[in-house]
């Protein structure tokens, strides 16, 4: 546990070294957010019978998406880990006296956290001060805010567990690009990154609700805006925990399998 913690601190410090990259990222995300919001504004400008989610809630959804991109983007990757596997340096990692799964999990978690901490505060701060149609509204009450934080963190744990599966798959395929791309595109779509989940057709929503991807992105954001009422949110938390346990278990199992017959590449 202590080893994991120090890896975590190390990664956090490295992440803070790239401040100008973060700044450029923030500018891009702002522009992106504006464009998407304007598109939705245009869609909502016509008389609608009964929209499943209001424009204010969509705006909130989009700003949160931009602010916490590092928490929810599956394509966010650590090339170091891929290289470890493909170059054979994994041998060193195996010599370390701590569980590989926990160590990598801490690494990935730290990376996402450091990137998110750098980016989310400026974006949230500015988005809160924007003029009316673009403004990020505050959650309806403090309890919702707390709940949001809780489910967001849980969602982050789930997402890291999912991305661990991508890394583990590299043991078998040796080429990260393919599985990463497929996982990334499908996962993002199913997490509501391209179209918010309430706006999807109902057959797709059934699929989305059955999978864990939305628990990391769509679910916390809708809790924030109050689109998902508190009692429903509380009822979903056990599902989150269940998925987390299942994903970690699958990850550990697959990794154990992969490591038992691991081939050290290179010489």
């Amino acid at each position, binding site marked *: 546990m202590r080893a994991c913690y120090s890896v975590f601190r190390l990664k956090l410090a490295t992440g803070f070294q790239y401040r100008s*990259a973060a700044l*450029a*990222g923030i*500018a*891009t995300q702002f*522009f*992106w957010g504006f*464009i998407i919001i*304007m*598109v939705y504004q*245009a*869609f*909502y*400008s*016509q008389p*609608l019978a009964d929209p499943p989610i209001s424009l204010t809630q969509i705006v909130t959804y989009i700003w949160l998406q931009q602010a916490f991109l590092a928490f929810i983007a599956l394509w966010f990757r650590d090339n170091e880990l891929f290289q470890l596997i493909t170059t054979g340096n994994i041998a060193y990692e195996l010599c370390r006296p701590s569980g590989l799964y926990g160590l990598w999990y801490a690494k990935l978690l730290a990376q996402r956290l450091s990137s998110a901490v750098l980016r989310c505060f400026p974006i949230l701060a500015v988005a809160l001060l924007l003029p009316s149609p673009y403004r990020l509204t505050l959650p309806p009450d403090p309890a919702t805010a707390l709940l949001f934080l809780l489910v967001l963190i849980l969602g982050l744990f789930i997402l890291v567990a999912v991305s661990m599966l991508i890394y583990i798959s590299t043991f078998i395929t040796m*080429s990260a*690009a*393919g599985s990463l*791309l*497929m996982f990334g*595109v*499908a996962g*993002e*779509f199913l997490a509501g990154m*391209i*179209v918010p989940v309430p*706006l*999807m*057709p109902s057959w*797709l929503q059934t699929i989305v609700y059955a999978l864990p991807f939305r628990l990391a992105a769509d679910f916390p954001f809708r809790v924030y805006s109050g689109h998902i009422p508190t009692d429903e949110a509380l009822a979903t938390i056990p599902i989150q925990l269940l998925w987390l346990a299942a994903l970690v278990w699958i990850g550990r199992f697959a990794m154990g399998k992969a490591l038992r017959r691991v081939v050290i590449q290179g010489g």
Partner: protein
Amino acid sequence: MRLFGKYLLILFKSQMQYRTSFWLLTFGQFFIPFSVFAGLYMLFDRFGQIQGWEFFEVALVFGVIHMAFAVSECLARGFDMFSTLIVNGDFDRLLVRPRSTVLQVLGSKFEFTRFGRLLQSLIVLIWALSKVEADWTLMKGVTLLFMIASGVMIFTGIFIVIATMCFWTVQGLEIGNILTDGGREMAQYPLNIYHKWITRFFTYVIPFGCVNYLPLQYILGRTEGSGVPYMLAPLAGCLFIVPCLLLWNFGVRRYRSTGS
């Protein structure tokens, strides 16, 4: 031109050396815009229309813009990756050769995996063309070709400008993504759904409006009076590349090697 063909052949051969990875990436490139398009479809499924634009009209714009982006990403990849040339000091070698730098940088990289993206946009375009309500004439067909060509010119121009910045900053600028990726994302809807200032900026400064909004009105027969200015708008968009090339030449003259 023959030299450029040679460059392409060599690059194609080198990329085909990693066949599985090549096909996987091409396949993946097909799916990225596909998921965006699926999202577009779902939104129209839900809302019906966007400020008077029907689904197939927007799909037409989507196809044109994504095709232009894919082609220019294939072509101008060398400019996109230009900062590596500067950082490694490899640009010096290009300067001593008796050919233009633009041609050499264009030929230094060519991303064949982007054909996946191209294919996807082609399918969308054909689908939209077969469904959109417009009476087709020869002139309209020509306008459509102009739109794609003009889009390619604009995206390539942006890539060149961003690469030119490297002469001063050495490192590549992530902020340029606003203009390339952001521009693509924005221009896949007809421009008039956005705010006035955005529309103006992307018509007069970076002429995306000349690619999508103005000629689209001509194709759909919504113009009043003569359609000729609307038809020629994409050609005006093509002119965007001229100042970009001038800026490039200016940058090349200012170039100081980073050494090796």
